């Protein structure tokens, strides 16, 4: 996959950001709820730091500006779908401008637990307009790599039930009542989210990783890909056996 150098914005440059100054690497881990993203990110962080890289890890709804407001809004009962998209976009913009961009300027490796793709997938799952969502998120930087941890709905269900042991209201898309109860709504909502992410995979050049594999195997696969980002293969690659 070609690495855009310097980094670029998707469609709308952020006021006051000179992309030529951004020296670091922006790596995104995407995937549906409970697929195991955060486990991988914490291991990747340790590994990257051992290699001498400074790492910033960040993720959805962790901004200084909007994280508290989002958490509170999700506890109430009036958070509409467009409002949710825009609240998350506010959170994302705050982190992009105040954490991600400064870290990239300083030459950090930025590991982000989800990016605009989850935000868009959630909107799409709620029948929001695709082109609207894309343009709203157009101020995002094109990452060096997007690793999409992909799992199907049955395996997500099993992770939720055997792991945390209950269905979450928002992870089940209960605000939209996709089904009569949390389980049925979860199944339908997550299927919509996965479908939306799958559709983005080609356009946004995701590297899809099968998340049904054991965590160690996924980790090694991520390591291999990320090594490739830092040490791009020489032009003449020895031909592999078919």
């Amino acid at each position, binding site marked *: 996959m070609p690495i855009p150098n310097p980094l670029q914005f998707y469609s709308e440059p952020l006021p006051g950001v000179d992309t030529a100054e951004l020296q670091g690497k922006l790596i995104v881990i995407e995937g549906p709820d409970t697929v195991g993203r955060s486990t991988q990110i914490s291991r990747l962080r340790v590994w990257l730091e051992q290699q001498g890289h400074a790492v910033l890890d960040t993720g959805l709804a962790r901004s200084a500006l*909007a994280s508290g407001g989002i958490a509170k809004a999700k506890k109430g009962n009036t958070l509409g779908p467009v409002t949710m998209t825009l609240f998350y976009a506010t959170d994302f913009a705050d982190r992009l401008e105040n954490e991600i961009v400064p870290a990239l300027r300083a030459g950090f490796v930025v590991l982000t637990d989800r990016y605009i793709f989850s935000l868009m997938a959630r909107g799409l799952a709620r029948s929001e307009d695709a082109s609207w969502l894309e343009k709203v998120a157009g101020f995002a930087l094109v990452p060096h790599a997007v690793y999409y941890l992909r799992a199907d709905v049955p395996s997500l269900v099993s992770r939720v039930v055997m792991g945390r042991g209950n269905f979450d209201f928002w992870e089940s898309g209960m605000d939209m009542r996709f089904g009569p109860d949390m389980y049925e709504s979860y199944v339908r909502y997550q299927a919509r989210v996965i479908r939306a992410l799958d559709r983005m995979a080609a356009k946004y050049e995701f590297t899809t990783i099968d998340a049904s594999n054991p965590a160690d195997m996924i980790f090694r696969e991520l390591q291999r890909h990320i090594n490739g980002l830092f040490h791009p293969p020489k032009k003449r690659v020895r031909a592999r056996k078919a």
Partner: protein
Amino acid sequence: MPLLTPNRFKGKLIIVEGIDGSGKSTQLSLLAQWLRSQGLAVASSEWNSSPLVRETTRRGKKKLMFTPTTFSLIHATDFADRQERFILPMLKAGAIVCADRFAYTAFARDVVRGVSPRWVRNLYKFAIEPNLAFYFRVPLEVALGRILGGRDSIKYYEAGMDLNLSRRIEESFRLFQGRILEEYEGMAQEMGFHVIDATGSIEDQQMEMRRIVMEQLGEAIASGQILHKEGTFRANT
């Protein structure tokens, strides 16, 4: 492609725009009161007033955390919440919704802050298109006189202090409002604003507003389509 989302509901949306000190809020509340006195269902909504978003906005303002992009996004979030939770249901129910400021405020103000016009116009594409948009045209000095005389302090973002136009808050406010005024003037025709001369007397402006409302919405009102008190209008079905 339409800029906004057409209003397909029974109710009607009336909005007012203008720089600070143009008198638009005074006029809108007089109008709302009059419509109500005619037996019509009226609902009012103000810019930047969603309880869901309030704390975040307050926090961002207090700690000066906003950039042009986040400032724009949080106001869009605020509007989305008011539209989803209040404006839409009221329009569906058949009320006349009176909104003090609308997406055009963002089109003017956020663009002055440096946000791309194309991006911010897309941002509000979900907003229901007003049936009537009033723009209160006023010379900068008149508006400034009303604001600077009547209020004790102008706030940081209100004065556009984040734009570093001037270190003096009054001067910054003057420059910022002047630029917003230019943006409003630039879009007045495109957006189909009904322009009200906001230097006229309060009474004259109000009469002009009422006249335009009846001219534009009179038929819908007379038909009984707008939610109203029993016996106020005879529906000619």
